[in-house]
């Protein structure tokens, strides 16, 4: 060794700084926002869960009182179940439509770009615009749905006014908005699959349906994994369309978890209670996402 131990350490430090320094520099703006808008609010909300008091009134430490009250609040449970019910309708539907459209688009050779743009368009529409548009679709008197029902001679439905149909109607809006996104995602994944495998399967005697079951679906597993986890996380947060279209009604039939958190925090002036519910929602989402990841991995 011609250099001393300490000299090696100094040179190594300088070398590493050169190697990684720029990376941290580029990351720093992102990290800054991550801290301001995620890390700090996270701990602030955690602190709020142990306190009572309003936005304008002073806070008071109440221990676990907020947490235990959430567990005893039937509306909180109802909003959670509503959210799960909504997800059970919306996610499989939007995936089926997205996958179906992607499979069709993959075979399309003419007007590919305009068709893709049209399908993706609803995803770009601001939620308020989308929701207002949906009012015209589901309006009991002149909406698109009921006009069609009348044409078919069927009884009309008060889509948003009936507790049985209100939540599925909101789900249909979210499906309409979301299908473009999932179509594009699935299409990208489909186009990335090697064509040789499908050629091989054709020669091996697999028809279109069996190629889908034995090749396309299993080969898309990484995409499915991403899609299911992300859809779970996003759909748990259903709020804006409920807020705009029904505001939780009729009779809490469209009350969703985030909607109820919002109501408690900002309208009933109970930020501590809202914060505790937020944490419950976070834990449930986390558990569900981890379970999904585990299940999908095990199958692989």
């Amino acid at each position, binding site marked *: 060794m011609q250099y001393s131990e300490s000299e090696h350490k100094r040179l190594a430090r300088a070398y590493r700084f050169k190697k990684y320094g720029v990376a941290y520099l580029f990351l720093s703006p992102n990290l800054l926002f991550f801290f301001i808008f995620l890390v700090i609010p996270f701990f602030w909300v955690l602190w709020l869960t142990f306190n009572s008091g309003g936005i304008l009134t002073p806070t008071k430490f109440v221990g676990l009182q907020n947490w235990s009250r959430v567990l005893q609040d039937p509306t909180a449970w109802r909003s959670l179940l509503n959210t799960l019910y909504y997800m059970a309708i919306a996610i499989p539907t939007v995936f089926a439509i997205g996958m179906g459209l992607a499979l069709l688009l993959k075979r399309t050779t003419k007007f590919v770009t305009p068709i893709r743009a049209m399908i993706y368009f609803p995803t770009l529409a601001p939620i308020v615009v989308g929701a207002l548009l949906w009012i015209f679709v589901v309006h009991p008197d002149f909406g698109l749905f009921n006009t069609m029902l009348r044409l078919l001679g069927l009884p009309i439905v008060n889509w948003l006014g009936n507790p049985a149909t209100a939540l599925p109607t909101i789900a249909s809006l979210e499906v309409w908005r979301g299908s473009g996104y999932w179509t594009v995602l699935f299409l990208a994944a489909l186009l990335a699959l*090697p064509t*040789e*495998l499908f*050629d*091989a*399967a*054709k*020669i*091996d*005697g*697999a*028809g279109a349906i*069996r190629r889908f079951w*034995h*090749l396309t679906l*299993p*080969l898309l*597993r990484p995409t499915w994994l991403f899609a299911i986890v992300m859809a779970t996380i996003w759909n748990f947060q259903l709020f804006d369309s409920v807020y705009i279209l029904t505001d939780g009604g009729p009779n809490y039939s469209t009350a969703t978890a985030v909607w109820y958190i919002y109501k408690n925090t900002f309208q009933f002036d109970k930020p501590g209670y809202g914060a505790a519910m937020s944490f419950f929602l976070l834990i449930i989402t986390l558990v569900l996402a981890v379970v999904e990841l585990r299940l999908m991995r095990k199958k*692989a």
Partner: protein
Amino acid sequence: MANVEILEVTKKYKEVTAVDNVSLNIEDQEFLVLLGPSGCGKSTLLKMIAGLEEITRGEIYINGKLVNYTPPKDRDVAMVFQNYALYPHMTVKDNIGFSLKMGRVHKGEIGKQVEDVAKILQLDTFLERRPEQLSGGQRQRVALGRAIVRKPAVFLMDEPLSNLDAKLRIQMREELLRLHDRLQATIIYVTHDQIEAMTMGSRIVLLRDGVVQQIGPPQDVYDHPVNAFVAGFLGSPSINFFEGQLVRRDGTWVFASPAMQLAFPAEVGAKVDAVNHGRLGESTPVSIGVRPENFQVVDGQNARMKGEISLVEFVGSDKYVYLDMPSAHCLIRTSPWFHGKKGDTIGLEPDWEHFQLFDAEGRSVFWWNPEA
């Protein structure tokens, strides 16, 4: 057991003609190699036989049955792909057995047949593994196994060895030949590697820009190339071409170029006269072709071909000697004991028995058959 007949087949993609009016008759149990540079249409032709590409014009028969409108699975063909195309989410066992499963063969029967094939290919200890856990050579074997298990009438192989390293390629070449003997199958094999083509094919079909250049047993094509493209494509290192003119001098043919004045021996001159039919007149531009191994090194003093050594490559069994000549270059193959050095001038004499002569259009004066 099957023969394949390709009749005036053409494939067009919009403006591009990938395969142009190809006719071929592949005998039962033949090992036919489709050879050519990339983009010559050989893979397209193979895919048309497989049914993965539609035929623009012409007919393909397998065992006497028109298959233009038969889906791939009903053509009784199996294909081995360049990238193996193994199903990544299935085990070796499931990969090999997939076609049987699609054919609704009984489960126990699938297991038995897969094991038989695995034994032939020495894959029996890897059956539960997935493709990603296998080496390149093992994957290649799985791809072969998937084809063999179906007992197809025709094997279609699309550059199956090109992703293997050199040593493994030679080993697999031998194994494929042994497999061909054992299965007594008809194999249509696509490659751009002329060594592979010559070592494996019972016949070679050389393609260029979608057009068949020459069909024949390897040595026949090597020794009697119908045009300069065929002569240049086969052989490594490749044949030397010299451009010049054919002139008549003192009753004999002489090849005249800045590099040499080469009077043909009487029997070669007679051969030229025999095939000439007035094609070659006085001062006709021609080129001659001499393979690197078809030179004799002679004394540089009064030799008719002379060159200055610019580089000597030692490759073990041989030495490749690069020569600079007046407005020409030449590569010759010598024994490893040749001791010329860079800067030396040596003389050469071509081996007239393997001497090639091409007209201005690159057609062989000796072997081009206008009727073919």
